[in-house]
């Protein structure tokens, strides 16, 4: 259950709209079901009161939407940012992807977002609606009169189980209280895979990546992927096919996708959230983050505006590529 309420957010948006600070609002809107929430732009109070949604499924990271949406808005745009979104916000500012002057950022606390697939696994299909009370989610389904109650923590999205920060690193105004950076265990799973033998690792990734249907959702949702012309849309890239002709294509796609955001990835977890095939894409990004931290010193993309990403920087006594394997223990 989120600490801040929908009404508080609407009131804030309405007051900023009415005093002319902002011209439009980037918020969440209900999709077909209670749990498929999509980002939407609201222009007036009526739209907000009618369609604005704030619940445990508002996972979408708005930072990327600012790149295209602020161009269409003449005045300022109000955007609600959860703590992890603010890292992407800073990273995009560092890369000059949108105009800071055109954005009014309101930081909102986040208590962790729910993963609908975990709820479906726990409660079955036929979900009509979901409401929250305390730290429980009550799931109303077609097949039972009584709502099924699950604890919010048990159905957290993967990224929220390993939340790295409840602290907002960028905002114009903050609603509620700011949290702290959290000691997370987000690299544990990466370390587990590293500890496998090469054959096991290959089998693991073959199993995960072969499910890829090349829908490009991970690319489209990623706040670090903001190129307007993408290498994967190039018909000569060899990986533009929808249906992979062989097992290598999706591996190439995922290695390159992760590599293109290496050093700029804030680990917001959007890639894994949007993946329709439930491929743990964050494990590829986290591997790069873990490597960067251990090779070149701790670096959190987006923690500050204007820092140089590790891959566009160097020192004269960097680690040699051959030394990489000597460091990580020997399990070849």
């Amino acid at each position: 259950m989120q600490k801040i309420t929908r009404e508080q957010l609407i009131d804030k948006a309405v007051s900023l709209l009415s005093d002319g600070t902002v011209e439009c609002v980037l918020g969440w809107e209900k999709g077909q079901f209670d749990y498929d929430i999509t980002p939407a732009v609201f222009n007036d109070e009526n739209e907000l009161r009618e369609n604005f949604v704030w619940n445990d499924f508002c996972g979408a990271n708005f930072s990327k939407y600012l790149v295209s949406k602020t161009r269409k808005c003449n005045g300022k745009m109000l955007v609600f940012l959860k703590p992890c979104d603010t890292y992407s916000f800073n990273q995009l500012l560092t890369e000059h992807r949108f105009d800071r002057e055109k954005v009014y950022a309101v930081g909102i606390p986040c208590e962790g977002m729910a993963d609908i697939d975990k709820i479906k696994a726990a409660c079955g299909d036929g979900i009509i609606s979901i409401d929250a009370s305390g730290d429980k989610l009550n799931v109303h389904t077609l097949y039972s009169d009584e709502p099924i109650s699950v604890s919010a923590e048990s159905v957290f999205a993967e990224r929220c189980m390993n939340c790295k920060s409840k602290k907002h690193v960028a905002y114009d105004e903050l609603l509620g209280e700011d949290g702290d950076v959290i000691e997370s265990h987000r690299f544990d799973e990466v370390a587990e895979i590293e500890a496998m033998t090469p054959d096991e690792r290959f089998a693991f990734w073959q199993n995960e990546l072969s499910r890829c249907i090349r829908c490009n959702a991970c690319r489209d949702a990623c706040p670090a992927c903001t190129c307007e012309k993408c290498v994967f849309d190039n018909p000569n890239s060899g990986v533009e096919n929808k249906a992979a002709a062989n097992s290598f294509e999706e591996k190439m796609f995922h290695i390159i996708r992760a590599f293109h955001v290496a050093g700029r990835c804030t680990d917001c977890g959007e890639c894994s959230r949007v993946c329709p095939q439930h491929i743990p894409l964050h494990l590829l990004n986290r591997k790069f983050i873990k490597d960067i931290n251990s090779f070149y010193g701790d670096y959190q993309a987006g923690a500050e505006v204007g820092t140089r990403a590790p891959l566009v920087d160097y020192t004269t006594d960097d680690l040699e590529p051959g030394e990489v394997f000597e460091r990580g223990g020997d399990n070849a």
Partner: protein
Amino acid sequence: MQINEYKPLIVAFCCNWCSYAGADLAGNNRLNYPADVKIIRVPCSCRVNPMFVLRAFQRGADGVIICGCHPGDCHYTSGNYFTRRRMALLFSMLDYLGIERERTRVEWVSAAEGAKFAATMNDFTEKVAALGENKRLEDLRCKR
């Protein structure tokens, strides 16, 4: 004579200013290195995009080696420093995906090191040949 004797295919990306000249020197000095090594000349080792490495594997290479000027000697001042970071991360990622780590290498070879070039290529080819065919990262359509 064995007709089906396995020969690895090695792709070597060599920078124009140091390693390519190093390969030339190896030739001039009549030093032997395997003919399985196919050299691709690039303006600088940092021209090698991670996609080039993967594409080489996709098209059937068994090993990929990137050669550039020694750190500090780059013709463009800092190119090979970027190569060093990129390839360290890329190789670590390939290892993470279960690709044999001996299939990739970065070696710094200057224009004066013809002997080092030949020795490096001999050693690398031997290691890759010992691993055998690259089954994990090849594109079946492009089979030789």
